[in-house]
C-alpha cells in the first residue's frame, strides 16, 4: 500500500473523529494530516510543495470551511504547477447539484457525499482509502518539468 499521507480538510471535530474511526475500522494506517480550515489546508499543501516534500496521496476536502472555502482551495491547488495533478476528493455533506458541478469543473477527482449512518460512512471512507491508496497510481511526488506543452495532462 502507498505509504504517503492522507490530508483531511475538515473543520468539524465530530467529522474528523468519525473519519479517523472509519479509517481505523477500514485498517488504513497511513498517516492522516488534518487541516481545520481552507487557509491551513493551503499552508499544509504549499508548505510541502515548497520543501519538495511528498504531497499527500489523497486529499479529502470538505467544501464549507472557515476562512478559505473548499472550492477556492481546489482552485488554487489546480492553478499551481506543483500541485495541479494531486488527487483531490471532495468529501462533503451536500449533494446539491451546484456543489457537484462546481467541484468537477474545478478539477475534483471525485465527489463523495458523507453518509449519515456510521456503517455507510465507514464503508465510504474505507472504499476511498482502498482506491486512492492501493489501486490508484498517484502522480510522481515531484512532478518533472514538462517535456512538451502539447500534452500537459498526459504526464
Amino acid at each position, binding site marked *: 500500500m502507498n505509504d504517503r499521507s492522507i490530508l483531511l480538510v475538515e473543520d*468539524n471535530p*465530530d*467529522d474528523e473523529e*468519525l473519519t479517523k*474511526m472509519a479509517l481505523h475500522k477500514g485498517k488504513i494506517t497511513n498517516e492522516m494530516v488534518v487541516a481545520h480550515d481552507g487557509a491551513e489546508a493551503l499552508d499544509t499543501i504549499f508548505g510541502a510543495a515548497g520543501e519538495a516534500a511528498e504531497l499527500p496521496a489523497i486529499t479529502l476536502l470538505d*467544501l*464549507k470551511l472557515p476562512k478559505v472555502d473548499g472550492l477556492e482551495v481546489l482552485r488554487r491547488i489546480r492553478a499551481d504547477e506543483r500541485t495541479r495533478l494531486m488527487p483531490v476528493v471532495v468529501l*462533503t*455533506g*451536500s*449533494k*446539491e*447539484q451546484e*456543489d457537484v458541478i462546481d467541484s468537477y469543473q474545478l478539477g475534483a477527482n471525485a465527489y463523495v457525499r*458523507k*453518509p*449519515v*449512518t*456510521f*456503517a455507510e*460512512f465507514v464503508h465510504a471512507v474505507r472504499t476511498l482509502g482502498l482506491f486512492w491508496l492501493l489501486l490508484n497510481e498517484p502522480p510522481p511526488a515531484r512532478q518533472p518539468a514538462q517535456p512538451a506543452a502539447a500534452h500537459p495532462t498526459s504526464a
Partner: protein
Amino acid sequence: MSATATPGVRPGVDPADYAQAITNMLEDLSLERERMQESQRATVNILEDFAEDKAWLEKSQNAILNILDDAYEEKVQLQDNQKALLNILEDLEDEREKIRRLNAELEDRVRRRTGDLERSNRKLEAFTYSVAHDLRAPLRAMCGFSEALLEEYGEGLGETGRGYAERVCNASRRMATLIDDLLNLARLSRAKLHREPVDLSELARAIVADLQAGEPERRAVVEVEDGINARVDRGLFRTVLENLLNNAWKFSAGRDETRIEVRGVATADGSVGFFVRDNGVGFDSAYADKLFQPFERLHSGDEYPGNGVGLASARQVVERHGGTISADAAVGRGATFYVTISSQGQGTDDRDEL
C-alpha cells in the same frame, strides 16, 4: 427803298407766294383732320370693345369673388377642423404622457419587485446552502457515535440502553431523509423548466412497471389510457407521476387486487388534464387541502411509510407549469387525483435556456 409795306408781309416777299403757302397749309390741315377723325373712330371702336371686355371682366370678377367667398367659408371651416384636430392631438399627447408615466411607474415597480425577488432568492439560496452543508453534520455525529457506542460499549449498555442508542440513530437517519426531501422540494421551486412534448401515458406505464417489478407477487390491474400528451418538463413530471402512482400503489396494498386507472380528462379551455385513481384506503375529503402541504400526513408512518413531501412536490411542479392539482376521495373507497396542465406553456417557462 420804299416806305410803304403790306402789313404782315415781309418786305421783299411776293404775296402770291404767301397765298400759295396758306393754301398748302389748309390742305395739310384738312388731311390731318381726316386722319384724326379716323383715329377717333378707331378709338371709339376700341372703347366699345373695351366696354364688352369690361362687362366680361366684371362678370369674371364677380365669379371670382363668389369663389373667394366660398373659399373663405371653406377656410373658416378648415380652421375649425384644424383646431378640433389640434385639440384631439393635444388630448392624445396628454394620454401618451399619461401612458408614458404609467409605464415608467410600472417599470420602476417591476425593477423594485425583481430586486426584492433576487434578494429573497439569494437568501433562499444561502439558506439552502446552509441546510445542505450544515444540518446533516450533527446528525452524522449523533448516528455515528451512537453506532460506535453500540459497537464498542454495547455490552455494558444493556438491552434497553442499546435500544435507546438505536433510536437515536434511526431518528437521525429519518431527519437526514427529511432534510433531503426538503432540499428536493426547494430545488423543484428553483429548477429551470425545460418544456418538451412528453407522452405521459408512456411515462406512467414505465413507473407502474417498476412498481410491479418491485412487488411481483401483488395482484394489480393497472389501466393507462393512451395518448395523454403535454408540453412539460420531463424530469419534473416524472416526479409528479411517481408521487401519484407510488401513493396509489402504497395505499391500495391491503386490497385483494390493486386497481389503478390513469385517464385523460377533456377540459373546456383546451388544456391537458388527467387523473390517477386507485381503489386504496382513501381518506376523508375534508382534509384534501392539507394533503398538498409539505410534511402533512393523513396516515401514520407505521402503517404507510412516507414523510409527506410527495404531494407537496407534485403540486410545486404542476403549479410551475401553470396547472392545478386536486384530490377527491372517501375513506375506504379509494382516491382520485386530478391534474391539469396549461396548454399555453404558461408558468415560469425557461425554454430560452435550452
